[in-house]
């Protein structure tokens, strides 16, 4: 087999970090090659070098056995390399054709020639099984379709080596399956695919070979059919990891959180939550599954009293809290692990101890007679740092300088050490490496065993299925259905995430309501704009 890409002894350092230490990567023509590693393992750095976004300190790159130097994305494109970024590089208000031709030389330069481009797009679509309407605006497309536009964009520019950065992170299981079919078709046509991921399941499902990176070093390249998930996890983390958890039975009686027909609006005044009713009991974890942007943020915010209720009621321990402030809700024993730990969960310029007391600062022993008790604060911080295994130089270290995993531990320490009755956990392991993820999940299970009610909002189906007692699927602010215990079927959850109601699941009527609402995303863009002008 000829090699499509060969990167030899790549070294790349950033101030204070050696991101790639002598990494060698060899990719055969026509294969799907997975690049596996935890966050910060150096996968993205290596691919940015291949795509010309940054230059290596030393090392050589060969494309189709020719030595090349790639100094910019333009060089990379010339050598037939295309990159599909994790966050799509598309312009929502442009049509598919405009997005694909943008920056390309037009046959009628400087005039646009969208007709010729459109025909070429349809041709590529036909030959590679990538169906998309060239006249549609990107903002009206589903996430899966947008990804197809990105792939066509790369092929349109002559790419036959495609780098895909975490391509499934935004997809539902069905969309992921579709993508995998497309990828196989592409490789059959002689394209080569480099697939960056940290999900073991996907590596096993799609790749021909896997290269594993850890801490910037090459651990090894193996054939997928000669390995298994546990072995790959061990290569990735450097020790044995537990991919499954033992859940002990708990005593579930008291309803801690009770949402009754809750409606809430988003920033555009549209209903982000529509008639949401659910209950969480003490000693149970209820999972909220769904594609990001289907009302999960709003759900967490109404429970925490951060977003007004439009209709309905919320009861915490049988007490209505719809008129209460966030402070009252916190004092009822509600803890929250927020979506954006750096923006909502922590004050990055504060020290560890300051962040640890953010919720209890006004209570003794932290405050006495209106003044902080510094010694009590430091003692408490030291205790929590030890208990939650936070790696830091001490209570006075700035949280902003810590790693993502350690930052999340600070949030966990603050939220869970209060012995809460209810924990609202939003994407608690997002962006964390396997080790930290394992730790966070165990902490949530501990809370469950202690008798707390846990509401787990996550887009990672693996996580929800591993931890939850029951799962509720949210689509465009409505509950599509609920599944419990041992009867969980991934395909059913996936269909509900696409908008199929549970009662319609097995009627053979696949009336998919639509795709993840682009409208709401557009709304979020405009609201952030308001702040800046």
């Amino acid at each position, binding site marked *: 087999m000829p090699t499509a890409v060969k990167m030899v002894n790549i070294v790349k350092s950033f101030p204070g970090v050696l991101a790639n230490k002598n990494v060698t990567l060899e990719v055969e023509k026509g294969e799907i090659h997975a690049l596996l590693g935890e966050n910060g393992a150096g996968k993205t750095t290596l691919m*940015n070098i291949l795509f010309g976004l940054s230059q290596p300190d030393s090392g050589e790159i060969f494309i189709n056995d020719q030595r090349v130097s790639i100094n910019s*994305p333009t060089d990379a494109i010339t050598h037939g390399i295309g990159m599909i970024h994790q966050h799509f590089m598309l312009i929502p208000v*442009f049509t598919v054709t405009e997005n694909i031709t943008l920056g390309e030389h037009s046959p009628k330069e400087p005039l646009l020639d969208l007709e010729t481009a459109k025909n070429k797009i349809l041709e590529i679509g036909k030959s590679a099984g990538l169906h998309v309407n060239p006249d549609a605006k990107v903002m009206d497309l589903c996430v899966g379709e947008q990804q197809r536009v990105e792939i066509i964009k790369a092929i349109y520019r002559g790419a036959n080596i495609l780098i895909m950065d975490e391509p499934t992170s935004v997809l539902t299981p069905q969309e992921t399956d579709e993508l995998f079919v497309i990828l196989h078709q592409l490789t059959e046509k002689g394209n080569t695919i480099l697939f960056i991921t940290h999900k073991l399941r996907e590596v096993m499902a799609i790749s021909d070979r896997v290269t594993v990176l850890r801490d910037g070093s090459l651990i090894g390249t193996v054939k997928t059919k000669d390995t298994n998930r546990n072995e790959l996890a061990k290569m990735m983390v450097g020790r044995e990891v537990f991919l499954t958890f033992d859940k002990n039975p708990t005593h579930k009686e008291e309803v801690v959180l009770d949402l009754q027909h809750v409606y809430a609006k988003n920033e555009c005044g549209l209903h982000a939550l529509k008639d949401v009713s659910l209950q969480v009991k003490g000693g149970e974890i209820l999972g909220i599954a769904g594609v990001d942007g289907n009302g999960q943020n709003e759900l967490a915010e109404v429970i925490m009293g951060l977003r007004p209720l439009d209709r309905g009621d919320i009861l915490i321990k049988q007490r209505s809290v719809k008129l209460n402030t966030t402070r009252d809700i916190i004092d009822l024993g509600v803890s929250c692990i927020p979506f954006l730990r750096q923006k909502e969960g922590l004050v990055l310029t504060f020290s560890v101890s300051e962040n640890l007391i953010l919720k209890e600062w006004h209570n003794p022993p932290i405050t006495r007679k209106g003044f902080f008790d510094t010694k009590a604060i430091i003692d408490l911080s030291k205790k929590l740092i030890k208990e939650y295994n936070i790696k830091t130089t001490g209570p006075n270290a700035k949280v902003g300088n810590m790693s993502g995993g350690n930052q999340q531990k600070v949030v966990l320490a603050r939220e869970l050490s209060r012995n809460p009755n209810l924990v609202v956990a939003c994407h608690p392991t997002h962006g964390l490496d396997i080790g930290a993820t394992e730790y966070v999940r165990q902490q949530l299970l501990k809370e469950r065993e202690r008798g707390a009610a846990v509401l787990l909002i996550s887009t990672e189906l693996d996580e929800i299925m591993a931890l939850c007692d029951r799962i509720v699927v949210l689509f465009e602010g409505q509950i599509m259905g609920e599944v419990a215990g041992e009867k969980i079927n991934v395909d059913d959850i996936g269909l509900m995430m696409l908008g199929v109601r549970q009662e319609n699941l097995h009627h053979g009527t696949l009336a998919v309501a639509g795709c993840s609402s682009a409208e709401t995303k557009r709304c979020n863009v405009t609201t952030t*704009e308001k702040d800046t002008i």
Partner: protein
Amino acid sequence: MNNILSLFTEEFFYATIRMASPVILAATGEVFLQRSGIINLGMESMVIYGAFFGVLGSALTGSGWMGLAAAMLAGTITGLLYGFIVITLKANQSVTGTAFNIVGIGLTSFLARVIWGIRELPVQVDTIKPWSVPILNKIPFIGHILFDHSPLVYLAYILVGVATFVIFKTTWGLKVRAVGENPRAAASIGINVYAWRYFCAILAGCLASMGGAVLSLVDLNMFVDGMSGGRGYFALATVILGRWHPVGAAIGGLVFGAGNALQMRMQAFGVKIPSDLLLILPFVLAFLAVVIFHGKSSAKPAALAKPYEKEATI
């Protein structure tokens, strides 16, 4: 009743076309700039620099056309400076623009006194003469209204068409819009975000100053303190009202021109309303238009007023 109708004569429409042109020039440049993702609140300063340097250039060379060249140069430099501050230094655009305006009004008044001293009547200079379009200006009624203007006035309206074509029908326009919608995506396929934004900043400065030159070299033959009279702000409003479309902005400019022409004629006719009240007429019209069209701004560039930072590549 008879009295009110008599305000709307041929002369009224002629004045509307003429008085709209500085606003339209400035707004056309601003459409480009905002489409590229930058809001220029400092247009008022660029208008007044154009008015001042136009007169200065004309005074030094004795030619109105050289005055125009000086105005355009001043606008180019101001646009470049504004670009440097908001693109390269990534300063807050609203604050920068406001500062530009304060400096612009003060600096031009100061320079006028330093150069020409304090006089009863400002220095009078050579102007850009009207040029009637042959034959066309003989068309009854509209001939005079449309075709008896200064070349700069024609240029303003021609540029509206050119700008529309460039923005929506060329690869350049597509790039400008891409840069204003999602600069990161544009950069990912090799478009130079900074270069395009600088280009638009310079274009906007240059066109706003041309608008200023219309005030001092076409409407008048002299520089008067603060003669920009809010036209820069007005152009900003018309861009938003006009949905970031050159034609929409031009219609906004015509509303301004009509309000202004009406106001002047009402004064001349001795309508018993204080003149200060009449002076705000165009702004009231603009305000009403903003209220009516509020909240339908889907054409707004998504990256407007957000500085672009190259991605950290770790």
